[in-house]
């Protein structure tokens, strides 16, 4: 999939653990893991908003488009 999730990079920059973010956002660590590993097929705007709020960042910091070719 050409959309890359850089959540682990942002988490490392903020020095935050996955379970802390999951707790703040209100999703399970399993779902956060799906998002981090790029297995997710879609992300709700509400989840993206909560992640951006918790990490104090922009959606572009988390999501990146990389062409397949």
């Amino acid at each position, binding site marked *: 999939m050409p959309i890359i999730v850089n959540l682990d990079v942002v988490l490392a920059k903020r020095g935050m653990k996955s379970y802390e973010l999951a707790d703040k956002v209100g999703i399970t660590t399993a*779902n956060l893991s799906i*998002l981090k590993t790029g*297995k*997710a097929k879609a992300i709700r705007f509400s989840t993206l908003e909560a992640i951006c709020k918790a990490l104090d960042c922009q959606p572009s910091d988390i999501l990146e488009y990389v062409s397949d070719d």
Partner: protein
Amino acid sequence: MRKLVILKSLVDFIWIVTCIPGIPLLLFFMVFVFINPDSVNFVIDTGVSKTEASTLQVQLIALVLVVLCFIGIYCLYLFRKTLRYFQQVKPFHEDVIANFYKIGYLLSGIGISALMVFFLARLFVDNKFRIQLGISSYLLIVCLGLFFMVLSEVFKVAKHAKEENELTV
């Protein structure tokens, strides 16, 4: 879910009462037809007339019909297997989709083959070219087969939608 239990019980009943004794009976019938066909007078009833059939005709028609019966029994076996997946609350399992497609494919084949056999039997036994339009049981079997194939496609789409929903964070 009570409907599923009733359906499974009915299918199991049909399987136990009809199919399990049917398999050895059909095999016995086949052996009888091929080894000692002269001991019984076989009559081909085409719906128009009753004709005493020759040995070769009987053997040919019996062979085709027994093969179709075995395919029908296999379809019921696949349906039972599919219902078991439903009971285990796995309606979108790969096997369910594959079984529905297989059942549809086989039922359509049975319907078309039976239609051909009876059409050819009428043609060669009665020397009559007769096409019966309207609702016949063979056409209904073909429709049922196509319905199962459509059902398989629907389940495939539903499985995809379910996976997508599960992977939405």
